[in-house]
């Protein structure tokens, strides 16, 4: 790999600053008392404490998954702090009351936090470490009956809705990290779109981890009632610490008859330095339940950050004619490891799913696609199309594909295509011979490679994702 390629990939992380804000941090360690403490701090109802304690009991009996194609030292779950909140007035009435230092942080991150960003047309919920600090456009959304607020607020203000759906898509016993999250989740976003309502703007959550040695366990729940639709965006960053932080989120989506949920993520958690020191362990469970007939769940993700990613946004296609989609770009560089993909579970008749996965590995990184397409006996006429493409940059990176296909009836159609390519010296020489330098060439090749996914992203996210990828891969090709 030439020097130009190296330099191109090896740009520093620009979100790696720490904000000096006084935080209310819980002592390290996890036991039933920690959970009671979190629940008390958040003034939660009794049923939620029960939910947490049951999850904790389940978690204690579970083992960490070792099947992903990633390697890291065993996590000491007693060395993590499970609650960290910026110290400030408990309840904010307007944006003006938010700690100015915090506002500056989000300004640096480019989060449209102020109401004046109405022009941008995005409603934002911001999660800093463990708690939600601001939700914009709440009132405007309330006019059409949409609830968009932090999970903590939802628990207090709309307990019946939260209780009805929480844990119904991803039960606490689902897996090790989902159980941990169910026990200790601190905040996240809640979004409810009532019957027949098309959400008039994109909803967005911005997550940031600021405290060293704290975990972030956010919980997001989105419910779209019959005929409702919503597009939801999620962005993530974290400061650069030499230690590893754990991020174990759970996201549940529920779409009823004819409802449509589109969930887009640009994940840019701190990935560790060029030697692989530090970075976020991103162990996330995301699943959507296409419960009603003709419902649709669509996941789009651009995964560029985190030292280790373990994440499979999935769709359970329960309703007849329901549709599941997964569009993914995962980029790894240096010593990053990603094991990511999706599960499409076809239960209803004539259900359809599409998987488009693009993995790019540079440096010494390892990038795995892992996907399951499962068609139940009753899911007659089901169809799936999967396309998994890998691109290798340089000589020392790895790309792996683990597709699982299980079909239990004979009227379904499954297609799977896969390819592996390489940004070669010859391609770059060809560009150079036409006057185009390596940086612009790599950017063009990568964008071409990812365009099937990028065109699924909302406009402003597509621009951000393109810039992020060029930035991420600067210096890696040559």
């Amino acid at each position: 790999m030439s020097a130009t390629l190296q330099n191109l990939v090896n740009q520093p992380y620009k979100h790696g600053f720490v904000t000096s804000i006084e935080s209310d941090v819980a002592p390290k360690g996890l036991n039933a008392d920690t959970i009671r403490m979190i629940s008390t701090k958040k003034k939660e109802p009794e049923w939620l404490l029960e939910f947490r304690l049951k999850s904790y009991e389940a978690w204690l009996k579970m083992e960490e998954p070792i099947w992903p194609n990633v390697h890291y030292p065993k996590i000491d779950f007693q060395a993590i702090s499970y609650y960290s909140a910026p110290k400030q007035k408990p309840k904010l009435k307007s944006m003006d009351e938010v700690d100015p230092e915090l506002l500056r942080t989000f300004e640096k991150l480019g989060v449209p936090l102020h109401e004046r960003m109405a022009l941008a047309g995005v409603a934002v919920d911001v999660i800093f470490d463990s708690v939600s600090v601001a939700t914009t456009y709440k009132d405007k959304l309330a006019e059409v009956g949409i609830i968009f607020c932090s999970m903590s607020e939802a628990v207090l203000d709309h307990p019946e809705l939260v209780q009805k759906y929480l844990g119904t898509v991803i039960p606490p016993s689902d897996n090790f990290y989902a159980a941990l999250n169910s026990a200790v989740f601190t905040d996240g976003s809640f979004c409810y779109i009532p019957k027949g309502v098309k959400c008039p703007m994109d909803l967005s959550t911005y997550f940031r981890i600021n405290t060293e040695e704290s975990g972030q366990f956010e919980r997001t729940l989105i419910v779209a009632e019959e005929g409702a639709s919503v597009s939801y965006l999620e962005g993530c960053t974290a400061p650069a610490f030499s230690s590893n932080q754990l991020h174990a989120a759970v996201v549940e989506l529920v779409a009823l008859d004819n409802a449509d949920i589109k969930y887009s993520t640009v994940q840019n958690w701190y990935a560790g330095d060029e030697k692989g020191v530090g970075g976020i362990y991103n162990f996330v469970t995301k699943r959507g339940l296409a419960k009603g007939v003709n419902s649709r769940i669509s996941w789009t993700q651009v995964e560029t950050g985190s030292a280790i990613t373990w994440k499979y946004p999935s769709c359970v296609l329960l309703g007849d004619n329901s549709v599941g989609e997964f569009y993914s770009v995962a980029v790894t560089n240096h010593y990053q490891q990603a094991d990511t993909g999706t599960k499409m579970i076809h239960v209803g008749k004539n259900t359809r799913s599409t998987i488009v996965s693009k993995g790019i590995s540079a440096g010494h990184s390892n990038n795995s696609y892992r996907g399951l397409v499962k068609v139940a006996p009753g899911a007659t006429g089901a169809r799936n199309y999967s396309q998994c493409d890998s691109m290798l940059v340089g000589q020392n990176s790895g790309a792996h594909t683990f597709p699982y296909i299980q079909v239990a009836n004979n009227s379904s159609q499954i297609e799977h295509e896969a390819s592996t390519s390489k940004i070669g010296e010859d391609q770059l020489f060809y560009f150079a011979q036409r006057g185009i330098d390596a940086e612009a060439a790599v950017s063009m090749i990568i964008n071409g490679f990812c365009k099937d996914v990028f065109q699924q992203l909302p406009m402003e996210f597509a621009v951000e994702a393109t810039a992020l990828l060029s930035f991420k891969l600067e210096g890696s090709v040559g």
Partner: protein
Amino acid sequence: MIYPDSKIVLEVRGLCATVNGTEILKGLDLTVRRGEVHAIMGPNGSGKSTFSKILAGHSAYEVTGGSVMFEGQNLFDLAPEERARAGVFLAFQYPIEIPGVINSQFLRLTYNTVQTHRGKEELDPLEFDDYVREKMKLLEMSPDFLERSVNEGFSGGEKKRNEILQMAMLDPRLAILDETDSGLDIDALRIVANGVNQLANKDNAIVLVTHYQRLLNYIVPDYVHVMEAGRIIKTGGKELALELESRGYDWVGVEHKAVARAVA
């Protein structure tokens, strides 16, 4: 065409180069002036393609001796992309496929990059579309070329036409056509040669690297050079190509050695 007192575009003196430690070029000399068309011929392995790749700056080759001046400046001071911007164009023997990158976007980027370097205005996508379609007529190319990935799935002839299209767009000072005739049927050869002929003018120079005389029926060279074992051993006019066609290459080497002995 040979113009009296025309400026030198390319001056190669004693060029030596290796690939993976093997010496390929062993003291190559060549002078090319504006307006001229040169053909470099020679048997396989004589170093013709190596020479063209070295001029373009391919990193697999190491220059171990000699000099190359391009329009009065040391060519080796320039990175490959800088050479291209300065007006060195190589039509590849095997144009590279770039899956996923749309041809029209690629062509526009290369066009605008070179234009910017020359202090000229960039074209927006619509303006460029008009511009490139006009140029494509020269090569009888169908507009659907623009929507395909760069060279991906192109036939041999389509790839070569796409190369000459880029030459037409970029308006180079020195165009090196590396085995552009290989893999072309007779119709494609005529179209490509016709395109090249229309692009040749008194301000640019063309170097044709070719194994066969066939191309030279269509693009008539001012000079024909015979390359053997990394050097140009004979130079003549267009009739030399015909002689090579009928007699092969061996006699040139024999004659060269005889001359060398006589001089010694």
